[in-house]
């Protein structure tokens, strides 16, 4: 997969490079755009200044036009001379001002006499007159003949005003002032012309704006900070303002006039171009009209990308998908039983590693052809594993009918324990994994007793001698065996099915056979991981098979309860033990150095086959109720272990039930209870059994 991985890595690098270029290349463009936006704002400010100036001139012309009114000029001349009734003059002038204001629609129209005294007002403070306003430079200049404009800050409001002298024949009779408040209407008008948002400020607050911009609250502070710059340059430089997640460019400029001392200014605001991000580029791309995209320029890029992807997929198919499929096919063939070595040469790379590993495993388990050539299950191979109790061919070997003491006698106290609350002197709770279900891989590789073979079969005396060495006070297996004996005996085996070495009189009783089988199978199968055992000193005993002991795949006794998938491999090859009895018939079975209980020879395959045959021929015996119960417990236990992910190989019902029986009998003896109830539960993530004495 080197090339496909490399190829896709190159594609990913190219994509990352393209994205980086797209993002980074936009940075200088964005800076240019911001500069352009700033220049646009400065041009807008210049335009605004011209606009205000031109507009001021229009106001001046308007004031000049009104000031030529003859009635107004005569009235102001009379007021300057000091008439007896100034109120009459006031009314006359005010009527004229209101008349003109109907047409001009301005916020203030004031008329003064030649001394700067207000004769009449229209609009703002129109009831007030006779006060002097010659202190205003605009009025003072108008009184000496100048027309001009100004910006006044009156009562917290900003007015743009214009004034013109009122000329009566050959002298100045007074001045006329017109003004308009700076408000939202002017902001909207400026926005329409300048295409930027406009805000007006006076004395640290915003008077009006063309839009409710989030940054309006920051503008007075900006005016304070840039007052000197505004005074010197007539405006501020474009300012970048970030507020409430929005970014703006702002240019501040003062209002021309005496209101400048009251921080009268206007701000031109445009939103900043957002930062170039992948999301922004995507949104901009999606917002574009597809017709406007340069398809001819994009076509080679798209084609190249498509070609690169196709090449990548081809490489992936060559290097990954195809070999994976081949390996999967061969694995399926292996699963179907076609156990042949995988052709690891056909599998490249790590698939070849997997194939070689499978082949190595096959080699370790035994050569695949031997598997196919091995005798069928239940054959009389010298090391074939004995069939469990109830198998179809339980032909016993006469030399292996241990009618004597059971060989499988646990040494220690049973690990099954009643609940703690049941008795203070109860033994510790049953923990199969820790005490009796030790992993077989951690066990010493102790050669098991010789499999059943006439040549290997120990003599009765030998077995008796062995069992005599066992603690006699442990009755568990005895009880179990007794229960087995109490079962209905299967019918006698046909004579022709008996092994030649067996004497007719020694034809085994099937009940005995069952007990024997339990005794003999148990040491063989206690190797199964998780198999509950009552011995604490020899876990995993018998978990190995001699390497030459038959097929690599032997049928577990649990096959009776589980489908074929529970065929388990022989855990690991073992060095061939010294054949016991061969050349030394009187030699006893080699004892397990860790446990004397394992010094029991397995029944011969012939014996087991005979038993199976008899069970096939005979009608099905009525199952013991305890067996029914134990079988259910066994199923629960197996299911729980599988649910917990624990291995179940080697756990057979016969061993299981034997343990339960022995434990049950032990508890009944100890607690004088009627029976014992076994329950499967999960302890520390592992399946466990709990034995509860039942007294009622």
């Amino acid at each position, binding site marked *: 997969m080197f090339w496909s991985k490399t190829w896709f890595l190159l594609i990913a690098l190219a994509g990352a490079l393209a994205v980086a270029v797209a993002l980074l290349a936009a940075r200088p463009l964005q800076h240019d755009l911001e500069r352009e936006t700033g220049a646009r704002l400065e041009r807008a400010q210049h335009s605004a200044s011209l606009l205000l100036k031109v507009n001021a001139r229009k106001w001046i012309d308007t004031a000049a036009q009104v000031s030529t009114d003859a009635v107004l000029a005569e009235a102001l001349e009379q007021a300057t001379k000091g008439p007896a009734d100034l109120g009459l003059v006031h009314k006359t002038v005010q009527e004229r001002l209101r008349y003109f204001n109907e047409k001009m629609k301005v916020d203030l129209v004031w008329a003064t006499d030649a001394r700067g005294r207000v004769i009449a007002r229209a609009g703002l403070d129109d009831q007030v007159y006779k006060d002097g306003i010659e202190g205003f*430079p605009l009025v003072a200049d108008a009184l000496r003949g100048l027309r001009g404009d100004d910006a006044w800050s009156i009562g917290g409001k900003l007015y743009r005003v214009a004034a013109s002298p009122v000329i009566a024949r050959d002298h100045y009779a007074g001045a006329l002032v017109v003004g308009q408040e700076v408000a939202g209407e002017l902001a909207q008008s400026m926005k329409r012309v300048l295409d930027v948002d406009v805000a007006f400020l006076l004395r640290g607050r915003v008077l009006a704006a063309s839009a409710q911009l989030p940054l309006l609250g920051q503008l007075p502070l900006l005016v304070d900070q840039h007052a000197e710059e505004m005074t010197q340059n007539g405006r501020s430089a474009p300012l970048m303002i970030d507020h409430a997640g929005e970014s703006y460019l702002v240019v501040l400029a003062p209002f021309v*006039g005496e209101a400048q001392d009251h921080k009268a200014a206007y701000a031109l605001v445009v939103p900043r171009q957002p930062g170039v991000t992948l999301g922004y580029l995507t949104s901009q791309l999606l917002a574009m009209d597809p017709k406007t995209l340069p398809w001819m320029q994009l076509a080679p890029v798209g084609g190249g990308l498509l070609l690169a992807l196709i090449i990548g997929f081809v490489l992936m198919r060559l290097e990954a998908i195809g070999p994976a499929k081949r390996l999967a096919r061969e694995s399926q063939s292996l699963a179907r039983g076609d156990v042949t070595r995988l052709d690891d040469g056909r599998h490249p790379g790590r698939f070849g590693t997997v194939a070689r590993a499978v082949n190595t495993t096959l080699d370790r388990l035994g050569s695949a052809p031997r598997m196919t050539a091995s005798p069928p299950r239940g054959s009389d191979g010298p090391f074939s594993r004995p069939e469990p109790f109830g198998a179809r061919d339980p032909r016993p070997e006469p030399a292996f009918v241990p009618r004597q003491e059971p060989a499988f006698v646990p040494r220690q106290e049973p690990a099954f324990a009643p609940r703690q609350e049941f008795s203070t002197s109860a033994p510790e709770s049953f923990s199969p994994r820790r005490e009796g279900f030790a992993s077989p891989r951690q066990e010493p590789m102790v050669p098991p007793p010789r499999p059943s073979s006439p040549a290997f079969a120990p003599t009765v005396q030998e077995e008796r001698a062995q069992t005599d060495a066992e603690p006699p006070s442990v009755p568990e297996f005895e009880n179990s065996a007794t229960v087995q004996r109490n079962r209905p005996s299967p019918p006698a085996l046909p004579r022709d099915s008996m092994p030649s070495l067996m004497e007719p009189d020694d034809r085994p009783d099937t009940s005995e056979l069952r007990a024997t089988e339990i005794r003999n199978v148990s040491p063989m199968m206690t190797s199964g991981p998780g198999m509950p055992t009552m011995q604490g000193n020899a876990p995993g005993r018998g978990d190995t098979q001699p390497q030459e002991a038959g097929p690599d795949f032997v049928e577990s006794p649990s096959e009776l309860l589980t489908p074929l998938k529970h065929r388990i491999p022989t855990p690991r090859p073992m060095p061939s033990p010294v054949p016991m009895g061969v050349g030394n018939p009187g030699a006893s079975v080699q004892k397990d150095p860790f446990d004397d209980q394992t010094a029991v020879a397995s029944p011969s395959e012939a014996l087991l086959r005979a038993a199976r045959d008899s069970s096939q021929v005979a009608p099905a015996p009525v199952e013991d109720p305890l067996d029914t119960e134990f079988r259910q417990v066994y199923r629960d236990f197996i299911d729980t272990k599988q649910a917990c992910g624990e291995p179940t190989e080697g756990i057979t019902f016969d061993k299981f039930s034997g343990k339960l029986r022995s434990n049950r009998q032990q508890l009944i003896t100890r607690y004088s209870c009627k029976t014992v109830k076994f329950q499967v539960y999960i302890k520390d993530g592992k399946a466990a059994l709990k034995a509860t004495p039942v007294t009622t």
Partner: protein
Amino acid sequence: MVPRGLVAVVFVGWASVAAAASVRGTVMLPTEPRIADHESHWRVENGVLPLGPRVPDPHLDVIVVLEGAPNANAKVPNTVVELHGLRLDPRVTVVPIGGSVEFKNSDRVPHTLYMDRGTSLMPPAPTPSGQSRTQKFFAAGEYRIRDEEYPHVEGTIVVLQSPYFARLDEKGNFKLEVPEGKYTLKVFFRDKWVVSQPLEVAGRANEVTVQVPAPPPAGAKP
């Protein structure tokens, strides 16, 4: 209100005259532009009549002071500055050290006067129409007074150690009665001292002519 026809008003108020000598002089102001340099877009002539004189006359804002004479026992008078027509009258006021200035509001609107760059001495305080506010000055110097509500309302209080000072008439003449001796003649115009020259007063009549230099053009470095 200062009468416009004031001619060579000489303040010799509280100075004792010993071996008095008369100092007469003329202060020539630089040529004023026809149109004042107010901050505005436009100041244009009307095209019908010529422009009238500036109001108020700039000569009224000129103070001539002779410094160097020993302090005489002077009676410290109060000076009244009137607020009317939305302006201070007179715009430039002279008081000796320890003198008081009464600001009388004759406008219809309240004024909030304060001392520019000296708000601790004279903080902003509203003076309603028809009421007065008095401020005492204990140190020589120039104090600029402004109005919070009307930026154009401004004036200067010049606190002098010397009792010999005079205002100009509308022609730029002044006259002082001072003891003989050596003095420094200083001219205060447009919120700053524009002339300072030695002057020896001897005999009964002394003539002096002072030329106020033109202000530097706008934007020029001082």
